[in-house]
């Protein structure tokens, strides 16, 4: 093993004669990195933070994006007490007209109502094609003298009123008001529950809100496009919306922009505060301008790790960049250790470099392998983070062991550190330390039972107050149509998809109130169902009902003053042969938007969507009920949370097991002594247990982001564990403690900076790892020596 590390002493000797070349090469590498960074493309997209594998969660997330309003931009215009509906809707018209390319392909302020002529033809034909068993039962009940009389009285009243001037043909062809059977089915096509109409505009029941629904080519995950869209919209609102009307924008893009802006601000806060505090800490502890050289290592690491990541990926995620602060904190551990080792004037620097390479290389390599576990992640962002951190640690190792020793030895000035003249060590009473440690561990282990894994993406999303208020207002005014669960009835073609959709509607109708189901099934059944309906219609009238209707209309009509053949057009209509209702027919009569949202086609399959309220009962129904229709996939925020939660538990377990295996093997190879191996693992285990216990106790949940904390705690813990065991077994002095303390503190600061972030995802990582470090640092400084110390 020593032979491996002697390469560093040989390198030191070799480079001692070529220092200028070494400095030039280092400078060129940093310059090249800076060159790569000049065109840095940082993305604040949320896509890297979401699973990209073939898991249920990934599939669900992809399907959630297909929900009718998922990619739409909604603008709610809210009037004050003095705002008239007219003013409100006219503003909506002006706004929707102004919303054009490149940010908007279409903006509507009202529904596309069917064109009258086509609708009547369609509706007459739709009667037989949509005639269900329930319709048959209801219609049978209307074929009584009393019912027919009541309906004919209504026909007569309408004929004598002004509307009768124009309604005569309709009243003649539909005296029994059969059209209401079809019109009632339209209720299932109402996607926005709180929608009213005013002059063909969406209007809220209180008349104070109107809605614009816009389509955009900008992808929801595109933060740059979303920001530009938001700016364009802001300018439009300023130009078009008069004072007294408040416009609020709700869309996934608003979330993307808010999150991206926040992460950007956070990046500045995190990197600058972490950089400054780490620099000051190094200066405070090292008390020499040479401390600046130590700080140069993590700074260069940041630059090179980013450049290296950019060579592998097209762009670097903002979350990865935020981890730069963590990398600053981690990667300075190695130069700090080298600095303290080289403070010894009595020994040959070549020998010191070889000796210090031992803990530094092992600590670093173990950390790299620990980070490599994140490459198994299903989240592309976490994989990028692993690459970024691995490059960073590797660069830090190279700089610390190859470049830094020369800089520290040759440049003028002294290598000093705080308390250099003091012989006091940081040791505490052994028994006390161990008892206290055991107590804390027991307490934390007890509290880990309260730990929760949350798959709720919203809780780690940054939601500005105004967006939160806008969401609440939208939901209160129009109903929670954006939070509906979506059921995908899948088929290889439209017919098979509609067939599954028919079964789904029948199944849901038994389980849910009719008003809660938004479905195409009542008005666009599959061809087979349409044929069955048409047969039912034909049989209904053939089965004596036509005669009965004729008799009732004739007798009751005569009493009210109708002539015997007043309703001849009705009986002509009954004889007409219906043709199938098609998707194209529905598009033609004005339901194009709805059909586009509810029927999704690609090369391989067709999906017909159904919307229902997202409840746990519904999720249970489709997960547990064996009778639930086949070929239907339920996608809902509620189910998605559950899936992500389960995936988190899986990921977490995998991380912990792999990372622990890796470090046990690595530390085993390094020390080849079970006692030393166990000692080196003490900070890792302490950090993890403390972190989990504190999280359980404080009610902090594990989420998609702070799960990374486990890896960081293991990486940092094993580093400090290796350093400490190396130092105490190879000549225990308090400089080692200082190096570990400083290394731990800088890591703490790097992570603490994350806790300053406004973005909940970054804050949660920062807080979680800080909790872990609260266990790691004292364990490395006090517990490891206490456990190692031999009883006198």
């Amino acid at each position, binding site marked *: 093993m020593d032979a491996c590390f002697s390469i560093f002493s040989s390198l030191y000797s070799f480079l001692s004669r070529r220092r200028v070349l070494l400095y030039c090469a280092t400078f060129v590498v940093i310059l090249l990195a800076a060159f790569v960074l000049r065109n840095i493309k940082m993305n604040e997209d949320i896509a890297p933070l979401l699973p990209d594998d073939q898991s249920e969660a990934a599939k669900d997330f992809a399907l959630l994006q297909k929900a009718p309003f998922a990619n739409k931009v909604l603008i709610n215009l809210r009037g004050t007490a003095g705002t008239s509906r007219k003013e409100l809707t006219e503003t909506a018209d002006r706004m929707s007209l102004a919303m054009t390319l490149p940010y908007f392909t279409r903006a509507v302020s009202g529904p596309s109502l069917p064109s*009258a002529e086509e609708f009547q033809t369609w509706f007459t034909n739709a009667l037989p094609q949509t005639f269900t068993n329930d319709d048959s039962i209801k219609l049978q009940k209307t074929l009584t003298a009393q019912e027919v009389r009541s309906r004919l009285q209504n026909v007569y009243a309408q004929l004598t009123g002004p509307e009768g001037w124009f309604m005569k043909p309709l009243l003649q062809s539909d005296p029994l008001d059969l059209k209401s059977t079809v019109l009632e089915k339209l209720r299932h096509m109402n996607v926005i529950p709180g929608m009213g109409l005013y002059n063909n505009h969406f209007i809220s029941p209180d008349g104070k809100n109107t809605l614009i629904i816009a389509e955009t080519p900008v992808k929801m995950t595109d933060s740059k496009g979303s920001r530009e869209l938001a700016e364009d919209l802001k300018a439009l609102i300023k130009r078009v919306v008069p004072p007294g009307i408040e416009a609020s924008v709700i869309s996934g893009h608003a979330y993307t922009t808010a999150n991206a802006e926040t992460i950007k601000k956070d990046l500045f806060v995190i990197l600058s505060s972490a950089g400054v505090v780490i620099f000051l800490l190094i200066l405070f502890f090292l008390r020499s301008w040479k401390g600046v050289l130590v700080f140069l290592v993590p700074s260069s690491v940041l630059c090179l790790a980013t450049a290296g990541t950019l060579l592998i990926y097209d762009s670097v995620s903002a979350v990865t960049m935020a981890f730069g602060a963590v990398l600053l904190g981690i990667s300075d551990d190695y130069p700090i250790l080298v600095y303290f080792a080289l403070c010894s004037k009595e020994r040959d620097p070549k020998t010191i470099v070889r000796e210090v390479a031992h803990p530094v290389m092992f600590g670093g390599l173990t950390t790299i392998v620990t980070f490599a576990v994140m490459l198994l992640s299903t989240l592309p962002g976490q994989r990028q983070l692993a690459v970024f951190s691995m490059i960073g640690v590797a660069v830090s190792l190279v700089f610390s062991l190859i470049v830094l020793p020369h800089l520290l030895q040759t440049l003028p000035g002294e290598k000093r550190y705080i308390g250099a003249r003091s012989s006091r060590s940081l040791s505490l009473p052994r028994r006390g330390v161990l008892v206290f440690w055991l107590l804390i561990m027991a307490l934390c282990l007890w509290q880990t039972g309260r730990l929760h894994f949350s798959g709720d993406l919203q809780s780690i999303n940054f939601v500005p107050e105004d967006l939160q208020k806008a969401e609440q207002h939208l939901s209160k005014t129009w109903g929670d149509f954006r939070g509906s669960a979506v059921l995908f009835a899948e088929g290889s073609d439209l017919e098979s998809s509609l067939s599954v959709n028919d079964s789904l509607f029948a199944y849901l109708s038994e389980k849910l109130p009719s008003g809660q189901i938004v479905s195409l099934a009542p008005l666009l059944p599959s061809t087979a169902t349409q044929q069955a309906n048409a047969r039912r219609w034909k049989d209904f009238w053939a089965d004596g009902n036509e005669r009965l209707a004729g008799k009732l209309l004739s007798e009751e009509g005569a009493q009210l003053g109708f002539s015997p053949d007043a309703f001849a057009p009705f009986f002509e209509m009954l004889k007409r042969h219906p043709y199938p209702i098609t998707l194209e027919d529905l598009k033609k009569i004005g339901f194009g938007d709805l059909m586009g949202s509810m029927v999704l086609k690609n090369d391989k399959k067709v999906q017909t969507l159904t919307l229902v309220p997202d409840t746990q009962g519904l999720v249970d129904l489709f997960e547990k009920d064996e009778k639930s229709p086949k070929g239907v996939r339920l996608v809902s925020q509620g189910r998605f949370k559950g899936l992500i939660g389960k995936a988190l538990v899986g990921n977490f377990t995998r991380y912990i097991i792999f990372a622990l295996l890796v470090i046990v093997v690595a530390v085993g190879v390094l020390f080849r002594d079970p006692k030393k191996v166990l000692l080196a693992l003490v900070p890792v285990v302490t950090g993890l247990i403390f972190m989990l216990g504190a999280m359980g106790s404080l009610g902090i949940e594990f989420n998609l982001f702070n799960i990374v904390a486990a890896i960081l705690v293991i990486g940092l813990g094993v580093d400090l564990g290796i350093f400490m065991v190396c130092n105490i077994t190879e000549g225990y002095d308090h400089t080692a403690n200082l190096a570990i303390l400083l290394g731990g503190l800088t890591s703490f600061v790097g992570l603490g900076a994350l806790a300053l972030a406004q973005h909940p995802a970054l804050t949660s990582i920062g807080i979680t790892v800080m909790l872990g470090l609260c266990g790691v640092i004292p364990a490395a400084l006090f517990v490891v020596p206490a456990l190692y110390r031999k009883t006198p």
Partner: protein
Amino acid sequence: MRTIIAILMLCCILVAAPAASAEGEPADQGPSAAGKAGAFARISKTVSGVKTIAGAFRQERRLAMLARPAVSTGRFYCMKPDKLRWELINPEPSGFLVNGDLAKQWKGKEGPSDAFETKQNPLIKLIVDQIFAWTTGDLKWLEQRYSINVVQDDPIILKLVPRSTKEKKYVDHLRISFEAGTNYVHVVNILEKGGDSTRIEFFDLVINGQLQQGLFE
């Protein structure tokens, strides 16, 4: 949703209703352009000073689908430029009122509905436009939709043939008679293609009288 259903129903209805848009057919100049101009001038002169008009009406519908004519009576109130109240009293009370862009409708003993925009209800808009044109003698509006012939010069009787092919499918022509001397509208006859007809007779007209407050609210 009920609103949507209502709108869709109205859309259905409107298919059958005469479309109000003018289409490019040559205007019927009538037997005498000078006579028509004179009649128009007299009507225009009469209505130019009209601010309010109120009165009673009797509607008689002779339809093939009815064994006997359906007669109804009621009252109307009109205030230029955009207020109208049309009340059917017998046999069943019903009606509607329009005040600018807003309208209300009622049937039986139910009170008026919530206000809605006339544009939202195309049928009401169509009816209102027709009644306004007849009662206020809005010849410009009528000429856009009908080719007008002067059938009789004094008292004036106009024959209006729809320009729209859609309306032509249902309506053969309208015949509007004006009161001798005053030149206010007296009788409107709607004659349909199949022989059905609707006759609305206006009487007890009060021109520029004080209208009761709240009639259009």
